């Protein structure tokens, strides 16, 4: 009976395995984090419309087919038409003819839009929540107005005078600290006796050990309203749909699928399927014949492919930051361009790997497409892998606007005077969209003296109204946005065209 069971026996607290159902149920995935974040933020920005957008984001999205000009073009077009798909170019031209010449958008008054007020309210609420989460018990005491504090101070000094040494055990921590600060003054430690280290802690204005902690509300402060740069918004002139571009899509409400791409006679694939909204920025950048184009964050290469399929650009430079991503571009180009290695590589396409923030070919490009890394709303809600809402990527996520703005600022400098740039994100967040554009325009003016004109595309967007659902331009400062909508489940996609003044 006294036999020892095992010499290796170690008493250990019982713990469930990681795949136990109770652990699995409690686990909060990045997808859930993203959803609750969006519910909070977009719920306050979009109000009642958020519900519909939410359902659309969580449901399968819709594609547009880009027909490859280098293999079986006519046959593919015919097949797609038999399936009931509509040629986007024909639809655009017909709608454009019928559209009356209405007034274009007026320059909105900054700081007075409904989004601005909503955001301000949201930021205040977020800050209060964060303070409350750090100082749970005395949360209401942290945020009182100045007058209140003064009043309370006077009141307290009187109290102290009256009560003398009386100690109230029910007092909260902040109150006690405030009172004790009086006592602290009375016993100042003489610095001669080496108490320098004490000053690290007193007065306490920061939490020790959390120096690089960024509160969530910091992220929303990138959205500013002050304008101290010349802001010009002009309606975009004529946009001519490229003759050689064959795009096919289904109308609103038709959720049919496209056939999978097949190999054509020339060995390249017949068509490329991409999210419908990604077509718009590349299309409306309006690349003309013989122009030099930069796609600053190109992977996976769909937008570059679309620009190449118009057969207009002289050369397209596809840049991305990681090798794995540039490899993806290479693979797609190889699949879709006939004789890629001999005729295209290095001649009409250049795939480079570099950080778009530090590219230095200033004033070299006619057109630049900047599809910046963003919270990729649809992706963040679907995939747990490499999700930006992972706890380990918090800092990266909160500082996204900073990075986006740095990329956009640098790309504006790469533009030839008179050239134009398309900034796009696949996020609904006003901070990453209008906020970043605003920040960059300001920076580019104050630091490099570059003045720009924002092009208003709302007239062109009306011609696409049969396929997409757009955000009302009144709610946006600079750009246009495709909203996810179940019958036309494209997007989200924000894009803004900026021209550098000569």
């Amino acid at each position, binding site marked *: 009976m006294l036999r020892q069971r095992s010499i290796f026996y170690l008493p250990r607290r019982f713990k469930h395995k990681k795949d136990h159902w109770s652990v699995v149920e409690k686990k909060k995935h990045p997808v859930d984090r993203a959803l609750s974040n969006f*519910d909070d933020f977009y*719920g306050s920005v979009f109000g*009642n419309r*958020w*519900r*519909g957008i*939410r*359902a*659309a984001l*969580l*449901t*399968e999205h819709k594609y547009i087919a880009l027909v490859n000009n280098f293999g079986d073009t006519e046959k593919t077009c015919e097949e797609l038409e038999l399936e009931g798909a509509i040629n986007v170019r024909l639809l655009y031209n017909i709608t454009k003819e019928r559209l009356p010449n209405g007034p274009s958008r007026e320059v909105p008054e900054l700081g007075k839009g409904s989004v601005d007020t909503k955001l301000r309210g949201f930021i205040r609420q977020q800050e209060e929540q964060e303070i409350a989460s750090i100082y749970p018990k005395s949360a209401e005491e942290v945020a009182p107005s100045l007058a209140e504090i003064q009043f309370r101070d006077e009141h307290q000094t009187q109290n102290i005078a009256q009560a003398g040494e009386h100690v109230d055990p029910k007092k909260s921590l902040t109150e006690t600290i405030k009172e004790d600060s009086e006592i602290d003054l009375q016993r100042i430690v003489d610095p001669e006796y080496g108490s320098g280290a004490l000053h690290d802690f007193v007065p306490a204005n920061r939490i020790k050990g959390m120096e690089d902690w960024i509160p969530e509300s910091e992220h929303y402060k990138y959205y500013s309203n002050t304008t101290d740069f010349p802001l010009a918004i002009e309606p975009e002139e004529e946009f001519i749909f490229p003759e050689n571009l064959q795009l096919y899509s289904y109308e*609103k*409400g038709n*959720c049919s*699928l496209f056939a999978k791409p097949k190999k054509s006679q020339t060995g390249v694939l017949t068509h490329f399927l991409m999210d419908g909204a990604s077509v718009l920025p590349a299309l409306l950048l309006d690349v003309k014949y013989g122009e030099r184009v930069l796609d600053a964050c190109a992977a996976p290469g769909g937008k570059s492919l679309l620009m190449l399929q118009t057969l207009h650009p002289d050369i397209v430079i596809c840049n991305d930051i990681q090798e794995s991503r540039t490899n993806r571009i290479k693979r797609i180009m190889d699949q879709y361009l006939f004789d890629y290695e001999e005729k295209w590589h290095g001649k009409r396409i250049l795939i480079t790997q570099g950080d778009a923030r530090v590219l230095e070919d200033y004033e070299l490009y006619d057109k630049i497409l900047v599809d910046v890394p963003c919270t990729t709303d649809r992706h963040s809600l679907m995939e747990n892998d490499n999700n930006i809402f992972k706890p380990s990527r918090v800092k990266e996520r909160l500082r996204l606007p900073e990075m986006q703005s740095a990329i956009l600022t640098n790309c504006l400098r790469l533009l030839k005077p008179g050239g134009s740039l398309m900034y796009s994100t696949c996020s609904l967040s006003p901070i990453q969209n209008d906020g970043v554009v605003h920040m960059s325009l300001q920076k580019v003016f104050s630091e490099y003296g570059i003045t720009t004109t924002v092009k208003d595309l709302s007239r062109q967007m009306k011609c696409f109204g049969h396929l997409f659902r757009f955000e009302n331009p009144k709610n946006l400062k600079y750009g246009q946005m495709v909203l996810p*909508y*179940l*019958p036309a*489940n494209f997007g989200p996609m924000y894009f803004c065209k900026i021209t550098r003044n000569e």
Partner: protein
Amino acid sequence: MLKRLQIYLRILRFNSTITKNSHNIIPEDSSQQWTLEQSQIDNIVKSVPSLVNVSTDIWQKAHSIFTEYGFKTKSFTQIVAEHPKVLTRPTAKISDSLEFWRGCQFGENRVENLILRYPELLEISNNRKILSQIHALKSLVHTSKNVWTLLMNSPNLIHENIKTIEAKFNYMHDIMRLEIPEIVKSQAFSYTLDDIKTRHVFLERLGIFKPRSPKAPPGEISKNPRLHQIMDSTESQFATKVGLVTLAEFEAFKELFKRELNRERNKRSDESDEDE
């Protein structure tokens, strides 16, 4: 204070209606409730001409069976008008099926209501199979009264495969986290599991329906729309009143979600193939 007054008034009104009704009942000829007169037969024949040739004898015979089981004459006439086959069916079979329904222990009035609403229930023949079905239902929803409410709402349950019923029940109970009284009071069982899933997932993705926390106290009122609001409404009603979106959005969702379900099913069957 005001509320208490309202409640008091309501009780007063309720009592007065009871006394009124009892006054009405007593002076009425009690025999009239249980006898079938020629004028009543003529009335039915007017609306159902195919019964012209049925002799008064058969009418009275059928009527006497029903009254034996506590059915009022008024109910009998309604049943015949709805379901004329009752008269041509052998009396023994009718009494058999009535005996069977009485044996289910729903309560006298409830059986009458059930047969009144669905006179086709008298046509049953395979009693043993249906009895086992009712037992299975009872094991799901616990009480006979709940089984009766279920049958009143979705009579198809008598002939549906118990596995599909269980699947629906488990979905509503475990995934939607609804309680039995709420499940029973809707017509959800008349729909397929995919229909239920579609409406539920649609609301979930809209952010309107959130499953109750498993630790919430059982009587707590949730903000979710009730199951009967979700299931017992037409598509346009559901989309605009419950989901607060347009019908077009719900229709698109139905199509997309059907594809999603199919994809999931294919994936699962592929996986099971690999396992084998």
